[in-house]
C-alpha cells in the first residue's frame, strides 16, 4: 500500500466552495477589526455601535454558515482545517453563544462601569479561536485556535481590572492555562515525532500503517494532548482553576466560558478523540488504558463536581462546580461514543443543550449581578420570585433543566447521553452518573428554594433594580428552546445525529486517496 498523503488544494487559490466555508471566519475577523477601529473613535464615550457591529458580524457568520450545513465536507489550507456539517454546527453554536453574551453583557458592563469596547472585540476574537479550533484537524491549528480563544479569555476574566478577585482569577487562569497548553503542545511535539505529521487524521492513518499501536512516543504524546484537553474541560484533577476563575470573572464572561469555551473544547476533543478511535490506531491495550483513564476521570469529575457544589453559597461558584459535574457526564458520553450505535451524537446534543441552558442561566445571573458582581450569594436571591416572578421563573427552568428534570431539555440530553452509554456497556458508570445527578439536584433545588420558598431578606443588595431587557430576552429565548427541546426533541436530534459514517473525524479517511 502506497503511503498516504493528502492532496493539497492549490495554494491560496481557494475554490468558491472553500471561500464560502471561510466567509463566517471573515465575518467574525472583519467584525472584530471593525470594532477595534470604531473603538478608537469611541474610546471616551462608548455607544452601541461597537456591540452592534460585533453582533451583526456574528449574525452574518451564522447566516453564511447555515447554507453550508448540508454541503459535502471540504478540506481547507492543506487539510489543516476541515469544513463539514460538524464544523458548521459547531460554528453556529459558538456564534450564537458569543452573540448572546454580547447581547446581554452591554447592560451589565454599563452597570459595572466596565464599558470598554475591547470587551466585545475580545469576545469576537475568542469566538474566532473556537471556530478555528473546532474545524482543525491539525495539532498546530488546534493550538493556534486554542490560544486565540484562551488568551482573549484570560483578558476577559481579568476584565474588572480594579477588582482583586477578577485580577486573581485572570492570573490563575493564565498561569495554569498556559502550563496546560504547554503540556498539550509537548504532546503535539511527541505526536509529530512519532508520526511525522501534526495532522491528527494523517497521523492516525500512519500509525495504523506503521503498526504504532504500542509506540511509546505516540502514546505519551496522545496522553499529553488528552491531559491538555482535560484541563480545559476541567476534569478532575485538572479542575481546580475552574471555580476560582468562574467566580472571579465578570458574570457574562463566566457565561461565555461555560458555554462557548467549553463547547469548543469538547467539540475539538471529540474530533481528535474520534479520529483516533474510529480507526484502530492504537493497540487494544492502549485503548483500554485510555478508556480506563477516561472512566476514572469521568467518575471523579461527576462526583467531585456535584459534591463540591453542595457546599457553595455563591451562585457563580456553584455553577462552576456544576459545570465540572457536567463535564463528567460529557466524559461518560465521550467514553461511550465509540461503542455506541449513535456514536457521538449524544455528546454533541448534550453540548448543544448545555450551552443553551447555561446561556439562559448566565443571562439571568448577569441580570441579577449588582456592582462588583455582588448580589450573587444564595441568600441574596431570597424571595426573588416575589419581586421578579418572571426572572425567577426563567432561572428556575434553567436550574431544573441542569438538574435533568423532565420536561426540560436537560432531561432529554441526559437521557440520550446515558442511554448511549448503556449501549456501550457502561452500566456501572451510568449508575454512578445518575446517583451523582441525584446529588446534584440538591444544589439546583437549593437555589429554587431561595427563589420561591423564602422571604426576601432585608438589606439584600437586590433591593431596587430592574433586570436588563436584553438579558431577559436572551433568557426567554433560551427557555423556549429548553422547553421545546425537552418536549419535542426529535427534529433537533435528527439534525444533530452523527451516523457512524459522519463521525466528527470528518470524511478525511474517505477523502484520502487510496480509499
Amino acid at each position: 500500500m502506497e503511503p498516504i498523503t493528502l492532496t493539497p488544494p492549490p495554494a491560496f487559490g481557494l475554490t468558491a466552495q472553500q471561500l464560502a466555508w471561510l466567509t463566517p471566519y471573515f465575518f467574525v475577523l472583519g467584525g472584530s477589526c471593525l470594532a477595534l477601529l470604531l473603538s478608537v473613535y469611541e474610546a471616551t464615550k462608548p455607544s452601541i455601535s461597537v456591540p452592534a457591529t460585533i453582533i451583526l458580524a456574528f449574525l452574518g457568520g451564522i447566516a453564511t454558515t447555515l447554507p453550508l450545513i448540508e454541503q459535502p465536507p471540504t478540506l481547507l489550507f492543506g487539510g489543516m482545517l476541515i469544513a463539514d456539517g460538524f464544523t458548521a454546527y459547531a460554528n453556529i453554536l459558538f456564534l450564537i453563544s458569543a452573540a448572546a453574551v454580547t447581547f446581554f453583557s452591554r447592560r451589565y458592563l454599563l452597570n459595572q462601569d466596565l464599558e470598554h469596547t475591547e470587551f466585545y472585540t475580545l469576545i469576537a476574537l475568542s469566538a474566532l479561536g473556537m471556530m478555528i479550533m473546532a474545524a482543525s484537524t491539525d495539532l498546530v491549528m488546534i493550538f493556534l485556535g486554542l490560544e486565540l480563544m484562551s488568551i482573549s479569555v484570560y483578558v476577559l476574566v481579568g476584565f474588572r481590572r480594579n477588582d482583586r478577585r477578577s485580577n486573581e482569577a485572570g492570573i490563575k487562569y493564565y498561569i495554569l492555562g498556559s502550563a496546560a497548553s504547554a503540556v498539550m503542545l509537548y504532546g503535539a511535539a511527541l505526536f509529530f515525532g512519532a508520526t511525522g505529521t501534526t495532522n491528527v487524521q494523517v497521523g492516525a492513518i500512519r500509525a495504523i500503517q506503521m503498526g504504532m499501536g504500542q509506540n511509546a512516543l505516540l502514546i505519551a504524546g496522545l496522553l499529553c494532548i488528552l491531559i491538555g484537553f482535560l484541563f480545559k474541560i476541567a476534569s478532575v484533577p485538572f479542575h481546580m482553576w475552574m471555580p476560582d476563575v468562574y467566580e472571579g470573572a465578570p458574570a457574562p464572561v463566566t457565561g461565555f466560558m461555560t458555554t462557548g469555551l467549553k463547547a469548543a473544547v469538547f467539540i475539538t476533543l471529540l474530533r481528535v478523540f474520534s479520529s483516533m478511535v474510529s480507526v484502530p490506531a492504537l493497540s487494544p491495550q492502549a485503548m483500554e488504558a485510555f478508556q480506563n483513564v477516561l472512566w476514572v476521570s469521568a467518575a471523579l469529575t461527576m462526583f467531585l463536581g456535584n459534591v463540591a457544589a453542595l457546599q457553595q453559597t455563591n451562585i457563580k461558584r456553584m455553577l462552576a462546580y456544576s459545570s465540572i459535574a457536567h463535564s463528567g457526564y460529557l466524559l461518560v458520553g465521550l467514553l461511550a461514543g465509540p461503542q455506541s450505535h449513535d456514536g457521538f451524537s449524544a455528546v454533541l446534543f448534550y453540548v448543544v443543550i448545555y450551552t443553551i441552558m447555561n446561556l439562559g442561566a448566565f443571562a439571568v445571573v448577569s441580570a441579577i449581578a449588582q456592582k462588583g458582581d455582588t448580589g450573587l450569594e444564595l441568600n441574596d436571591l431570597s424571595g426573588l420570585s416575589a419581586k421578579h416572578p418572571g426572572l425567577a421563573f426563567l432561572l428556575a427552568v434553567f436550574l431544573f433543566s441542569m438538574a435533568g428534570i423532565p420536561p426540560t431539555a436537560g432531561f432529554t440530553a441526559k437521557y440520550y447521553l446515558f442511554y448511549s452509554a448503556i449501549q456501550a456497556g457502561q452500566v456501572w458508570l451510568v449508575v454512578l452518573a445518575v446517583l451523582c445527578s441525584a446529588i446534584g439536584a440538591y444544589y439546583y433545588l437549593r437555589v429554587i428554594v431561595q427563589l420561591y420558598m423564602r422571604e426576601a431578606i432585608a438589606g439584600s443588595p437586590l433591593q431596587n433594580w430592574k433586570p436588563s431587557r436584553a438579558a431577559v430576552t436572551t433568557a426567554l429565548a433560551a427557555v423556549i428552546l429548553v422547553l421545546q427541546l425537552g418536549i419535542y426533541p426529535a427534529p433537533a436530534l435528527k439534525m444533530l445525529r452523527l451516523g457512524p459514517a459522519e463521525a466528527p473525524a470528518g470524511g478525511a479517511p474517505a477523502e484520502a486517496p487510496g480509499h
Partner: protein
Amino acid sequence: MIPVPVPVILSFCAAIFFIGLAGVLIRRNILVVIMSIELMLNAVNLTLVTFSAALDHPHGQMAVFFIIVVAAVESAVGLGLVIALFRTMRTVDTDQIQLLKG
C-alpha cells in the same frame, strides 16, 4: 563533528520542559512563573525542531514559528495581567493571591 544522538537531545528537551514545570510549581514570583512557562514552551520548540531534523520534515519547524509568536503574545498578555494585579494587590507573590478559594 559527531552529531548528538536524537534521544539525547530529546531527553535534554524533556529536562528543560520539566525544569519549566518545576519553576511553575515552586517559584512564588509570578514573573518567574511566566518565565518558566516560556521555558516549557521553548522546550517544546526544541523538541519539534529536533524531530523535524531527525525526520527530515519541515512541519515541525513551521510549527515552531507559530509557537514563538503565540508565546510572545501570551507573555504580553500575562505581563498585562500581572501589572493589573500589582495595581490592586501590591504584590506579585503567588502565596498572597488566595482570595478565591473554597
